[in-house]
């Protein structure tokens, strides 16, 4: 393993060096370029630490997605004054003193903890084989089944997985997407009175209603997923060789179809009713959708599946927020395209 320290030094110096270059660069495009190289080199560090999936993820999302966006932003806002914007000496002073102090504190504390500075003995081939399969363990953890390398048996299923954070993050991404689109939209203003043909249209154009329908259908399908998916998820996990403890969880949770049929049918019926109502009356539709979700959540709690109930609650909250936001944000009338107001 000792050769790997050379590789570590190589990637570490590239990461820090390019980060420093990004700090010192005056031109913002060059700064973005150095940042790309720095983040790419740090993904090399991740590969070295055995986190292949995280390294590839860093390259794909961080470097390939986020930074392309950033460079796009740089180009959209590039003017000569903006490209090279110099900072005053006092700015540099007030930046370097606290960050230098923080670096000294962090680095010395990192090197002061004995547990973090023990050289690890070369791992056995079995351990390497078990630990190298991090990708599938990551996938299982995101489905709610967390395993450490080489681990099987009663302890394996007992730790909480990451299904819940995964759901939260997906809703967060959705909200961020809507928010970003809302913020970056070009503001348009009607400069002439609305033409008769447009003013005569109903307040909510047809496709907005379809938007509500799509969101409602999303809600209904999520309801169905939470009703039937825990079973499916657990069974898939077991079929793919999950430890026996999960099988015993299955039996203790009473996740058989007979138990779910009645509340499931009720919830789906209520959500479908809400869906139908959304078409005609938004507020009561939202209310009924909420009711359907409440039924689901209460059922989950009743049957002891607390984590799933929490998950359903968060997802319900997110969808309701989204529906409400759409309800308030959508314009009352379709407006003609007019000049962009800056």
């Amino acid at each position, binding site marked *: 393993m*000792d*050769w790997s320290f*050379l590789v570590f030094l190589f990637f570490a110096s590239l990461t820090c060096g390019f980060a420093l270059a990004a700090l010192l660069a005056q*031109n913002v*495009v*060059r700064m973005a*370029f150095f940042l*790309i190289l720095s983040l*790419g080199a740090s993904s090399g560090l991740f590969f070295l630490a055995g986190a*292949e*999936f995280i*390294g*590839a*993820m860093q*390259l*794909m999302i961080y*470097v*390939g*997605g986020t*930074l*392309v*966006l950033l*460079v*796009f932003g740089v*180009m959209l806002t590039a003017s000569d004054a903006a490209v090279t914007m110099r900072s005053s000496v006092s700015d540099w002073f007030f930046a370097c003193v606290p960050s230098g102090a923080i670096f000294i504190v962090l680095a010395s504390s990192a090197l002061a903890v004995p547990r973090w500075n023990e050289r690890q003995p070369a791992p056995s*081939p*079995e351990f*390497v*084989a*078990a630990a*190298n*399969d*991090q*990708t*599938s*363990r990551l996938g*299982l953890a995101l489905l709610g089944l967390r*395993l450490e*390398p*080489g*681990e*099987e048996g009663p302890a394996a299923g007992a730790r909480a997985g990451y299904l819940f954070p995964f759901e939260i993050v997906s809703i967060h991404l959705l909200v961020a997407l809507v928010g970003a689109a809302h913020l970056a939209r070009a503001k348009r203003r009607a400069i002439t009175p609305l033409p008769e043909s447009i003013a005569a249209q109903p307040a909510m154009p047809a496709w907005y209603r379809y938007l509500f329908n799509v969101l409602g259908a999303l809600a209904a399908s999520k309801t169905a997923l939470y009703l039937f998916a825990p079973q*499916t998820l657990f*069974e*898939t996990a*077991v*079929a*793919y*060789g*999950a430890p*026996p403890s999960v*099988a015993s969880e*299955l039996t203790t949770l009473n996740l058989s179809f007979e138990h779910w049929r009645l509340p499931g049918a009720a919830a789906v019926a209520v959500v479908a009713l809400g869906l139908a109502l959304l078409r005609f009356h938004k507020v009561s539709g939202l209310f009924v959708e909420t009711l359907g979700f409440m039924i689901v959540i209460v059922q989950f709690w009743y049957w002891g599946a607390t984590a799933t109930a929490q998950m359903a609650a968060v997802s319900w909250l997110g969808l309701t927020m989204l529906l409400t936001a759409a309800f308030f944000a959508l314009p009352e009338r379709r407006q003609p395209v007019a000049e962009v107001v800056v």
Partner: protein
Amino acid sequence: MVEAFAEWGLPIWAAHLTAALAKAFLLLNVVAVGTLVFIWMERKVSARIQDRLGPTRVGGKFGWLQSVADGVKLLTKEDVTPATADPLLYKLAPYVSFSAAFAAYIALPFSAGWSAVAMNCAAFYVLAVLGLEVFGVILGGYASGSKWSLFGAMREAAQVVSYEAPLALCVVIPAYLCGSMDLHVIGEMQAGWFTNWLIFHDPFTFVVFWVYFTCAVASVNRAPFDLAEAESELVAGFHTEYSGLRWSLFYMAEYGSMTLVSGLAAILFFGGWNGPIPIFHLLGWADGSAGEGLHFVALLFGAVNFLLKCTLGVIAMMWLRWSLPRLRIDQVLTTCLKYCIPIAAVCFVGATLWDLFGAPFVNDLAPHPYGTRANVRERWTDAGTVALRPAGAPLSSGLPPAPSADSMAAASFDGATRPDAAAEPNRRAELPTIRRIR
């Protein structure tokens, strides 16, 4: 390879270094020689499509040394930097592009177990690194200080970022069907007759291959999606100002990534290094039981198979380029957002359901004495969810041997009974399974 160098008496770090350099050298040869061959081939293919002869003189017959002559010409050209350019970024951009196209080859297997690095998320890695090539183009276009270059770069950025989404969605489907993102595993699961290739798995994978091909052509900026260098509007787009060696680096990056996406298509949909007829399985050479030398021959022919499939993919791209007119930018984005993404999403759901309900696929009707993909997957997952195989070990030796003939005779054509299902007291049998195990 490292072990071999270490046995020669090199210290371990030197053995690692030598192995890495040797692999990098081999891969560099694949990219560079591939580019030379493909440039010559592009000239000949385009000439045939336009009813011309193409290069005929350099190197005697067929002008096969034409690309070498081109290369020499490019090397002797003056390396010009425009006065308005940002010199640092202008000079570095071609290297960024080329190294991104080159780095993706690290995880690409050329035959069973033959890749520079065995990565268990290789498909994801290749996609990720392929997406980085756009940086070279954006930076080169911006740093050139010319409006044509900037237009080309912006078009390229918009195009590549939007086409990454359907491309990833198409790659997810084979990864899902094989239960792994390891390209070795995906390739090895398609062993056997050509009916076991994933493109023939179900109608949805058949459709999604074409979506993949469209998105791949778009993501490597080939016609009809070559808006970034639209020579009829933008002079030469992002590389207007480049000349000489730096220009040829962009060119090598383009051809390198073309080969790469074709290779990825070959592994994901066309069985990778497995030929249409499992000759080496029939001969018994493929699993190493007939001796190391014959095993090596089988692997070598696997690599030949793979390179042949890559070349076919690249030729198909050339054929497209010289047959179709260039799209407008709005048409490019419409193709992506209105067609590719919805079709790929529907195919994803469809392929998932097809697999979930165990609908028949064409390989059920063909002889499959080496195990269907599902059999291979079952054996693979039986090994446990955690310890699948030692890192870097060739997969072919890691798999259990193929089931014997009589146990296969017991298995019906739809494979509802697995050969070893009766032997082990299966805990799955007691649980309501949602998947009909083929």
